[in-house]
């Protein structure tokens, strides 16, 4: 299992600029550090809005592990994801045996840096859901700073 990014998502953020991308972005205020950072920005929106649609068939894999600037907040990221996963599964208040079961399917048994099938699937769907919202609400943006200021507004209280 792996993190996926839909082709549309990739195109959207390539236009702004991602380090390591083969396409040159138009942003004048810097590029995103990695595709995972982009993935996570989308996933946060999906989690926030609790929208987890199925993955687009037109997609490509990016990484197995949390990378880029997100690495700094890997544990918080996983903590949030696991909590939201339990909530989504309706077990967040269940007994520990149930939680343990979810834990084992969410996280990987072999590597503490990778996820289990459920974990990847949950986050991939969250990212997809987030991107659908972003692509509808943050349009015609080619600059990173502009994107981020509008991105922040999605979470306005």
């Amino acid at each position, binding site marked *: 299992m792996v993190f996926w990014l839909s082709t549309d998502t990739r195109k959207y953020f390539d236009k702004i600029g991602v380090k390591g991308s083969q396409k040159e972005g138009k942003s*004048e*205020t*810097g590029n*995103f*550090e990695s595709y995972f*950072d982009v993935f*996570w*920005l989308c996933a*946060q929106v999906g*989690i*926030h809005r609790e929208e987890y649609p199925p993955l687009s068939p037109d997609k490509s894999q990016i990484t197995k592990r949390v990378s880029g*600037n*997100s690495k*700094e*907040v890997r*544990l*918080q*990221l*996983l*903590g*949030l994801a*696991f*909590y939201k996963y*339990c909530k989504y599964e309706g077990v*967040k208040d269940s007994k*520990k*045996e149930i*939680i*343990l079961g979810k*834990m*084992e399917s969410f*996280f*990987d*048994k*072999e*590597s*503490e840096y990778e996820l*289990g099938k459920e974990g990847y699937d949950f986050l991939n769907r969250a990212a997809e859901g987030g991107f659908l919202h972003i692509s509808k609400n943050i349009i015609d943006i080619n600059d*990173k*700073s*502009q994107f*981020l*200021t509008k*991105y*922040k507004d999605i*979470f306005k*209280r």
Partner: protein
Amino acid sequence: MGLNIKLLSVSLRNIRSFGEMDFSFPPMKGDLHSDLPNGMTIAAMPNGSGKTTVLNLIKSAFIGKMVKEKCVDPPCNTKCYCANSLRRRMNKNGKSFSDDTSEFTMRLKINNEHYNVSMILNHRDKEYFWKTQSKKGNEKRWNLPFEFRRIFYNNEKLIDLFIVDAETRTKIFTDSDNDLIEKSIRQFGGLETVYNLLGEPSMGQWKGGQLEEIKSKISQTTGSYLSDNEKGRIHKRDTNCIKEVRIRISENEIKLREWEKESKQMGTKISQIQSRIEKIDDEQTAKNKKSKNLRDDIEENKDLLEQQTKKLELLLINPINIFEEEWREIQDFHLKQKEDGVPGDAGREFVRKIIKDKICICDTKVTEEMEKNLKRKLPEYIDNTTSRVVKSIQDSMIESEISQLDSAKVLSGEIKDLRSKIRQDKFDYDETFGENDAGQERGLLYEEKMRLTGIKEGIDYDITWFSTQSFRWLIDEGKDEGLDSMGTVPKTPMWKEIQKCENIPLLRSIEERLEERLQKASGESTTYNGLKIMRKVVGEALLTVSEKLRNQISIDTNNIWKNSPAIAKESELLVLKIGERGITFEDRYGRPTAGSGAQTMIACYSLGAALVKRGNLKVPLVGDTPLTGLDTDVVEKWSKESYERYEQSLLLLNASEKSIFIDALGEQWLARNTNRIVIWPEKMASDGGKEMVYSDDIDLWNKLQGNSGVGGGV
């Protein structure tokens, strides 16, 4: 009426470093009274031997006034006209080394007449006086012939063109004013034309009763005052010709006036365009400065914006900030799991319970083999990667920082401001430079200026040609009128005068104005009044002559200047202008600029040569270190040109210039074309000063080297 001046000798007694010195050039040794010959004489004189002193004395004798020198006799000790400025050194005791008097004498030949001019210096009274010796006898004053006086008397700036101190030559430019040019042009060209017709206007000669004679001379020249009888004696064809010519001249004058008006209008337009171009340039400079500030600002803000964006990204990528409100709940969830022993012993208890109950969660009975396997896998439940990462998550929840989403808001605001500022700066920048109409306008203006300048130059050329060359036209017109129908130009007096005359319109003007004034003066019987009127008329006419001739001399000077060595490529860039502000350099766009040392030198030579040409003047060229400012590669050209242009020249060289001269011209050329003399300090004077000695010994000449004088055991 030309002026032919030849320098015969220069003698000094008790002046500065000179005891007894005779600057003649003896063709035979011992004959101290021989004349300096024609051609080029080179005097090799080491530094400090008195080159400038000799030059200034020659100059003084030309202008009838002592050239300023630094006075060596306290308490003057400054530049003054005091006789002691030329006194020989004092001895160590502060007493006069020499006699109470010194003397400088210059022998000249002016238009084949011999003159001795002496300056006698009285050191006791710090005074000096002149003596002039000529065929008229001895006079205790400076009194050279009128033709000489009217050109050179008290005209230090003019003589600087011929008696040259190259080291200070640029003062001709820096001090130049209209007077020099005006005076010189009148003396060299204008007066000659009019004097030929009116005779010399010296009060000594213009005596009462000569008015009729002058009037008659003008009449003979122009035909205006001819009586019927006189007219009858003139060939009819000539009269008709003159009449016709006058009509044509009038037409030409009208045409000239139109051209002059047109030229003036062009000049005004050109100067307006130039002003506009300069204004655009000024504005452009200001814009450039503003644009630099804007660009710097934009770059600085862009850097800042990128930094702030990066900070914002890091804040937004942190889920604590995004899920600020829920975070407490998320923390509680994980901490509760921790308390519940997730993952901890939960796995172990789960397995133990299955082993203990012998019943699996799927309600099947646990076999021994299954139990054995469960026991073997027990540690994995307790310590696998999954439990490690969950433990890490639980620990990190305890340490979770306080949300910084407020910082993100502030940052976001700053980013918006920065973007807005950059956008404004870019807008201002585009506003300033977006559509560079000014640059386009400047290009069009420049083209227009060049076009008008071309037209104006054409008009000015026509004006010059018609103003100065009309006599040629006159002759051609005369021929067309049948004056040479017999194959020869008629030789009547009138026709001769017309041929001699360089500016018929001017003469006609003089004639008409004179007639007018004389008519007004009729009834007043005093000749004196008539004479005064005559002088005024002539004076006014001369102003017109000066203006016309200034133009021609300016052209001559520029032609010589442009064909001179050392100028070469620079002449394409610079124009030597003789205008109302004196002599100036201008660049190709008519803007005043500065010339180099060599350009200044050659410009002076060019002006001198143009005046000499116009005035039919033969004057010696005397140069003190004349190569100063010239590049070594033009020394040969300059020297040969000077050699050809001046019948007589005396060049005072120091030792290093002598070497340059030899290198440039070669020993053979020098031996063939020049006379060589040497002034060197034969011995030290008893007062410690130098005692300069003259010689034409070629061995001594050859031995002068370095700065110290004659070396090699002389």
